[in-house]
Every structure is written in structure tokens, then in C-alpha cells.
């Protein structure tokens, strides 16, 4: 890629990250946003108007005027949009989960590979300074062998299309398994071998799972538990949710709380207690890193393969929920 100005196209605004992508045009130098596509005209137009962008009713028209595509559509729409982008040879950063099935995710990875175009997965938590420090600490070796990890990625039920399996492909397990899975793979450089999971709909009047619990076994024997539940009560809990880990190693215990840095805010008018975070903006760091890779023609910082591996863990988790047995992670069907 040799263009001095990188033109971003935003495909789908269903996910909140679309706002970060729209803001990137203002924050980053030599970056502009060409426009926004969404299958929902009202939503697409409203978003375009909010950021002074052009709305494209046809995806291929947007692909014709951008250097990179940011997919922030509903989960089930990632796959069809990405295949268009691969055909148009547009480097694409896709929202997590990469797809709702291993087959779709694999097809995306294959399409970009055969087009020789970059596919990236949006895992912004890798840009948390605490995550980076923990990874460095692990790799330097002073902790000794890691034995087990107790992780959470709990949240508030996001509502809307997240509760509709046709759009989301699944519930809390689909939404919140991939971040921690990716962190574990990246920090320890191991793959997940096997998954046991429980999942159920217990807290909300929806048809997808809203609570779950996973136990992952890695290929070096390390064990990781993960709570992906949408268990934070909306409007009452002081923040949207969390990403935490307690890491037990031979030489000690390390606690990670990605969204820990905050001040307490007590507000009379809303009768709300909330956290005002003061950590760094991971989204901005992730977008800047992606744009640099597009500009320099270097491999994606977080690949489509990374996205696929995380989807494969989700797939094993849902199989386990049904079979009541630990299930092997399969990336090729």
C-alpha cells in the first residue's frame, strides 16, 4: 500500500467499535473515512449524519473508494461482508468474533489468503498496558511455569441484536469467550486443546445463553476457567463489565484487572454509582496499529487466523454445552 492518505470504509455500525473507527479519521494523521455501509438504511444514515460521513447503500460502491475496511456489523454479517472485501482486494479489520461458525471463519481466512490480502481481527484488549506488561513478565520467565488461570469477561446484557441468534450466532459465550481466549493464546503462546462448558438462559427473557462457565485445557496442560456471563445488572452495576485474570504460577500469583483504573462517581440526579475509567484507549491504539500495517503493507498485528482460533474455542464450548463432555477444539471441519 503506497497511498499517503489511508481511506477507511466502515461496513456495518451495529457494533460500538464503529464509533471508534469513525473517530479515527479525526484522531489519526493521514487517515480519512470514505463512508459507511449498513444493510439497515435508517441506522446507516443516522450514523453517517452523526459523523458527517457519506452513507453507501451498496457495499461494493464503498469498497471501490477505500484502502481498508473496518467491519462492525452484526456477528453473522461479518462473513458475507468479508468475502466481498477479499474479492475487492481490500485489507480488512473485522470485529470479534470473526464469524459465528468455524466454517465461516475458515472461509474468510482462506479467501483473504488466496487473494493475498490482509485480514485482521479486532481484539483491542491486547493493547491494554497491563496485558502487555503481564505478557512481558510471563515471557521473561521470572514467574516460572504458569499453572492455572481464573479469568472473567463478564458484562451487562447488550440488548438489541445480541439477543437474536440470527444476528449474533449465540449469547454470552459467543460474545465474551473470544477476548480471553485470544489473550491466553497471545500471552502464553499456547493453543487451547479442549473445552468444557456450561451455558444457559437464566437472567433475561431471551433465546440465547446469558450465563456460562468454561474450563479450557491448553496444549501444555495449563488450565483456564472463564466466566463469560452477561451477569452485570444494567443501570446498577458501576461499569459495563470486566476482563480479569488471577494467574497462579510456580513463583507467585498475579492479578490482572484490565479496566481496574477508575475513580468512583456518585451521582444524585441519576441515583447512580459508576466508574469513570482513566486507563488508555485500547481501541485507538489498535486502530493506529492496524492503519500502520495497511500503510506499510506488513502482516496484520492480530490476524484472521487469531480470530479463527478464538471462534474454534467458542464452537467447542457450544458443543460441550450440548454434549455435557469436554470437547476438542477443531479448526478444520
Amino acid at each position, binding site marked *: 500500500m503506497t497511498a499517503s492518505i489511508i481511506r477507511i470504509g466502515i461496513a456495518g455500525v451495529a457494533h460500538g467499535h464503529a464509533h471508534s473507527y469513525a473517530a479515527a479519521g479525526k484522531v489519526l494523521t493521514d487517515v480519512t473515512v470514505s463512508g459507511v455501509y449498513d444493510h439497515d438504511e435508517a441506522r446507516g444514515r443516522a450514523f453517517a449524519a452523526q459523523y458527517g460521513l457519506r452513507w453507501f447503500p451498496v457495499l461494493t460502491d464503498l469498497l471501490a473508494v477505500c484502502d481498508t475496511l473496518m467491519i462492525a456489523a452484526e456477528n453473522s454479517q461479518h462473513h458475507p461482508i468479508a468475502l466481498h472485501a477479499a474479492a475487492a482486494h481490500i485489507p480488512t479489520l473485522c470485529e470479534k468474533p470473526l464469524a459465528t461458525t468455524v466454517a465461516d471463519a475458515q472461509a474468510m481466512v482462506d479467501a483473504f489468503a488466496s487473494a493475498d490480502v490482509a485480514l485482521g481481527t479486532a481484539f483491542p484488549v491486547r493493547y491494554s498496558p497491563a496485558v502487555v506488561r503481564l505478557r512481558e513478565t510471563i515471557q521473561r520467565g521470572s514467574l516460572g511455569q504458569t*499453572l*492455572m488461570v*481464573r479469568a472473567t469477561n463478564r458484562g451487562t446484557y447488550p440488548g438489541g441484536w445480541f439477543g437474536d441468534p440470527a444476528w449474533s450466532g449465540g449469547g454470552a459465550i459467543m460474545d465474551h469467550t473470544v477476548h480471553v481466549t485470544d489473550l491466553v493464546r497471545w500471552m502464553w503462546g499456547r493453543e487451547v486443546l479442549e473445552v*468444557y462448558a*456450561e*451455558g*444457559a438462559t*437464566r*437472567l*433475561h427473557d431471551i433465546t440465547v445463553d*446469558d*450465563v*456460562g*462457565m468454561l*474450563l479450557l*485445557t491448553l496444549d501444555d*496442560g495449563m*488450565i483456564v*476457567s472463564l*466466566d463469560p*456471563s452477561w*451477569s*452485570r*445488572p444494567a443501570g*446498577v*452495576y458501576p461499569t459495563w463489565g470486566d476482563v480479569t485474570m*488471577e494467574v*497462579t*504460577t*510456580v513463583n*507467585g*500469583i498475579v492479578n490482572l484487572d484490565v479496566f481496574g483504573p477508575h475513580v468512583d462517581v456518585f451521582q444524585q440526579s441519576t441515583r447512580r454509582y459508576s466508574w469513570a475509567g482513566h486507563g488508555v484507549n485500547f481501541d485507538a491504539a489498535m486502530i493506529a496499529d492496524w492503519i500502520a500495517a495497511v500503510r506499510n503493507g506488513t502482516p496484520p498485528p492480530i490476524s484472521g487466523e487469531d480470530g479463527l482460533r478464538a471462534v474454534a474455542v467458542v464452537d467447542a464450548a457450544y458443543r460441550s454445552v450440548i454434549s*455435557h*463432555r*469436554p470437547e476438542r477444539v477443531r479448526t478444520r471441519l
Partner: protein
Amino acid sequence: MRYGIIGGGGMAHLHAGHVLRMNDAQIVACAALEFTPTMHALANKAGVPCLNDAADLLARTDLDAVIIATPTDTHATLTIAALQAGLHVLVEKPLARTVAEGSAMLAAAERHHKKLLCGQVVRYFPEYATAHDAISAGSIGNIGVARTSRAGAHPPAQSWYADTLRSGGVALDLLIHDIDWLLWNFGPVERVYARSLTERAIPGRDGVLAILRFVNGVIAHAEANWAYPDGFVTALEVAGSDGIVAHRNDGIVDLAMRAQRDSGAKLASDPTAQEDPYYAQLCAFDGWIRGGAAPRSTPAASLESLRITLAVVESAATGAVITYPIDGRL
């Protein structure tokens, strides 16, 4: 009430101290193969003999009840002998080393018409009891997911706790507390799956992560950790359709101090001793013997806590999911 104490270690010392604080209660004799210096000092102070054979204690005719705080693999034999001798028994947790032993203990209590209480003391910890009450009262609606953690340092290698054959390891020492509390809240378990560090036999490090599915649908995650360098941390969180109940033991309660090293600074002692969970449990046992209300744990509940904890151990050892057939349920 005339108590005998069997056991010479830290837990025996703790229970004996509480007996001495109760009204209308006395210690008549202590028995253990080995006494810690503090336990010896306490017995001397109380003016009671330290016997080196539990049989000599059980042969006495001036006892009403015994507290058994010995290594886990001795609970069954000592408890059954005490019940046979016509004594009420408060036995430390876990109830026994195996389900068969535990079942024999319950049968002996029935046969000899004596009271048996297993010290699943978490039911008397104010935070855990308050959380239980809030959940039972429907404060957070229908329960979806529960999490518990219990973490501390590995016992010394030469201690009986470190001998899995005797103690049952980290699961029977720590995890059983939380499993007992979860069962108290959510009823019978349908499925258990767990992974542990035990099989890897890393000296001085152990831990277990378990997922429990209850018959009522609740999903729980229970963790026990024997790999902390020091300290003791417990945590619980239960999420329902109308909110969350949560507690951690590492926050300030009502009074805390950071003393300068070697300054000798010391907080005044807490006169509200009835708040101590072990004391509250002992008072419940004592009152029960005198005809009062039953304690928060029944022997059957303690046996169930043992059974589920051993299922966790079995799942972790074999990699199998342990499923319980439930009558009247598909």
C-alpha cells in the same frame, strides 16, 4: 456440659478455647497422639489431663460430648467410637475421608441416638450467612451463576494436610467449604467437571477449578488454591435476574490498622466474641444437645458436601464429567 477434646493441633486448640469461654461448659480431658505447645498450655491452664490415647478419654464416665479435631482419615473411627460410648460429637470438616466412612458415621449417630455435627463452619461466617439470607429472600431474583474462591499457602510438606491419602488435599481442605455453601443455597448437584494441579504433583503448589451444574439450573464455578505465597483470600459472587450479591474477605471490615514495623502498635481486642463463627457453631451444637434448635448443618448435608467434593476430585483425576441421575427428571 462436659466436653472432651480429641486432637492436639491448631483446630483442637481453637475449639478448646471457645469451650472455655462458654457458660455452663467445661473441658474434662484432652487426648491426642501429639500436642502442640499452645494446646498443651491451654490444657494445663484449664487444669485438665492431656491423654495420649483417645480410648482413655472415651472410657471416662464424666463426659457429655467430644470435639474431634484430628486428621481427616481418623474422623470416622473416632466419631463412631465416641457415639458408641454414648457421647455427642462435633467433628471437624470434612466429615470423613470417604463417603463410605461418612455414611457409617451417620448410621452410628442414628443407632446410638446421639447428636452429630460436622463443622462446616462457613454457614456461621456472618458474610456467608448474610449472603445466603439475601439470596433466599429473593433479593437478586432468580439465580443464574455463582462463583466462589478460597486461596492460601500450601501446607508444609511434613504436615498431614500435605498427605492427600490422609487429608484429601486442597479439595477436602478448602473447596468443601464453598461446595457446602453452594449446596446450602442451590440444592442438589446434577453435574460436576473439574481440572486440578494435583495430578501434576508440583511440590508446594496445588489448586482446583470446578464447574458445578445444579438440578435447579444454577451454574457455579468453585476455586480452591494452595499456591499462594501467604495470606488467605475468600470470595463469593452470585448473580441473579435482579442483581448481584458479592463479598471478598480482603477489604476493611470495621477496624483495621497498618502498624509500623517493630512499633508494638496493637488494636484493642474485640469483646464481641459471639460473632466468631466457630464460637457460634459451638453454641448451636451445645444448645442442640440441650434440646434447642438444630444447627445450620445436618449430618446428611455434610455427607452430601463430602460426596460432591470427592466427585470434583474424581473428575479432575479422570477427566470425566460426573453426572447424577435425578429421579423424576429427564
